[in-house]
């Protein structure tokens, strides 16, 4: 796909001889070339914000008030900032679920399904252990269950892509719907907590199995885990043989085949990493927020994660700040709804608008000489 460009520029830089002057020269060129990948998405964000402001004015709302509430609801106070970090945790993980396959040239959007099934698996395995097995045993088992189920789920889409040529975008989204249906099947049926008449849920996993907060804050451990995982996956994709092979496969599938790279294992591997990340997000939603598995797991984090990853240009480290930004937007949704009398879908409209404008801005790459001046090894 076309947005594999950062990988391509990374390859070009890796191929230059390591003499000191040329390395310095390269650094300047790389900074210039890479600033394009910052400037254009930022420009797209501003354009989307401007369009959204026009939209708000058209329906008689104040954009300034909107910005004010996003600030207050998402970042302004210690409470709202912690809420934002809390919500950015599943966004980081589901964005990774898009970014890793994107590196190998696949557009996979099955994060929501892996999140739901991962969370469900964690709850399902914990409930029979309540009061019997000590948390020190159960918590790793829950994490493993969530990660494995998520990895298997998206892994299916990867395998089908490699072995049967099934379009991975469609299959991963279909698997999301199937995953949600499977969870509903169990939660409304055999695993339903009969003592909870309001909302079909599994039995609670109990306080002992909850992961709790980082001391001194109200941010659960999912956030630092997401940050660490982002860094780890960045290193995996840019500094290891696996990552290099995956990027080669994404850049030129036939060349990778001709080189004898294990293309199938790479594709399934990337899909499974993706699913594992999303499954982990599901684990934290269950073990840090909900305390049980129910339909609230399908809250749309998987879909917002798609946007986060595209905006971060599928760079695992850049995902962190972008996820925090959107975490703030999601966190302020309730405040906007109450104070401005706007539907909860307002955030969806803004996200959709950003996404559309962002993809439109793809056409701007390579059009501005300022990013290329002095660059002899111009990208094609």
């Amino acid at each position, binding site marked *: 796909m076309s947005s594999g460009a950062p990988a391509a520029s990374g390859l070009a830089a890796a191929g230059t001889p390591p003499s000191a002057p040329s390395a310095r020269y390269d650094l300047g060129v790389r900074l210039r070339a890479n600033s394009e990948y910052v400037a254009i998405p930022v420009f797209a964000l501003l354009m989307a914000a401007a369009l959204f402001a026009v939209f708000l004015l058209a329906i008689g709302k104040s954009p300034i008030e909107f910005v004010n509430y996003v600030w207050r609801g998402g970042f302004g106070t210690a409470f709202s900032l912690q809420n934002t970090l809390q919500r950015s945790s599943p966004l980081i993980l589901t964005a990774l679920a898009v970014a890793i396959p994107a590196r190998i040239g696949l557009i996979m959007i099955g994060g929501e399904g892996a999140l739901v099934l991962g969370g469900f698996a964690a709850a399902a395995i914990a409930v029979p252990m309540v009061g019997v097995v000590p948390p020190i045993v159960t918590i790793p088992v829950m994490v493993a269950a969530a990660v494995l189920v998520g990895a298997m789920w998206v892994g299916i889409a990867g395998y089908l892509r*490699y072995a049967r*040529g*099934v*379009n991975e975008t469609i299959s991963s989204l279909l698997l999301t*719907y*199937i995953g949600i249906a*499977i969870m509903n099947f169990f939660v409304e049926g055999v695993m339903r907590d009969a003592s909870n008449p309001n909302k079909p849920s599994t039995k609670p996993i109990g306080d002992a199995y909850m992961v709790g907060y980082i001391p001194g804050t109200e941010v659960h451990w999912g956030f630092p885990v997401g940050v660490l995982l982002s860094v780890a996956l960045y290193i995996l994709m840019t500094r290891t043989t696996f990552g290099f092979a995956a990027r080669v496969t994404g850049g030129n599938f036939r060349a990778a085949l001709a080189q004898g790279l294990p293309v199938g294992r790479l594709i399934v591997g990337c899909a499974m990493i993706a699913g594992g990340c999303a499954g982990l997000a599901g684990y934290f939603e269950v073990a840090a927020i909900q305390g049980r598995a129910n339909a609230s797991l399908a809250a749309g984090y998987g879909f917002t994660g798609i946007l986060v990853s595209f905006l971060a240009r599928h760079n695992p480290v850049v995902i962190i700040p972008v996820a925090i930004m959107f975490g703030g937007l999601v966190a302020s949704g309730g405040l906007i709804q109450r104070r401005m009398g706007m539907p909860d879908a307002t955030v969806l*409209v803004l996200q959709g608008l950003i996404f559309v404008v962002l993809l439109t801005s793809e056409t701007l790459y390579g059009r501005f000489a300022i990013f290329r001046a002095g660059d002899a090894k111009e990208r094609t």
Partner: protein
Amino acid sequence: MNAGVVTVLIAMLGGAIRVSTPFMFVAVGECLTEKSGRVNLGLEGTLVLGAMVAYAISYHTGSPWAGVLAAGIAGSALGAMHGSICSLPRVNDVAVGIAMMLFGTGVAFFFGKPYIQPTAPRLTSIPFGGFSDDLNLRSALDINPLFFVGIAVAVIMAWAFANTRWGLIVRTVGDSAPAARAMGISVDLVRFLSTTVGGFLAGVGGAFLSLSYPGSWNQGLSSGQGLMAVALVIFARWSPLRCVLAALLFGAAGALGPALQSVGVTQGYYFFNAAPYILTLALMIASSSATRSARDMPGELSMAK
């Protein structure tokens, strides 16, 4: 037990007719778009927006057919957006489709909130079951005119692909953009129009959802039906007529859950709700191959490369 099976079969027949209509419109619209060499994954959003607009306009004007038209116009607006954005160089049509899906759904939920409660006038069905005393059969044969409109559109489109200059132009653009350019055809314009018309049809499909069956507007109205219809086009190998047949098959699969529920089989209701998705995936697996691109696939599709 035997009577139960008959009831289920009749309910599935009725379901096949009712449930298939939105699939049919989306699939036939997407068939046109893909024939021109572009994929619009955003038709899920178009379907939802069409459903919302149709319901709202029908509520305000009192005329459901005005709602259908408005849904088509809303759908073409989204299609035109997709078509024009994808005309720009280096823009990925699959990714734009995902964005349009989220955008269309978001806009529909935003403006649709006030219309969840009120009741809008629905499209009236034509009763074909008058000959029978069986209530189940009569309700199964209450067929919405849009069902026939959808079949007519598919037949006309199939005929046009094979026999008209317009059909030839769309097929050429879809199979080989360089050849089309050499013929002096504006590839971007043809794709823009194909996506816009495809969006119109998907919008009308959405109108069927909210104005006929299930016949109300809410946020869970279409969970993935637009997406399944897009997948169905691959299975139907880019033929409008086969799209109709595939839509009927899907309708029957989608009706399985409610049909079983109507005879008291509630066990596994959610599992049967998953049946259409699983069937779609199975059909995609069956009709794809790792080594060659699908038969009859337009050569310009990004999926083909």
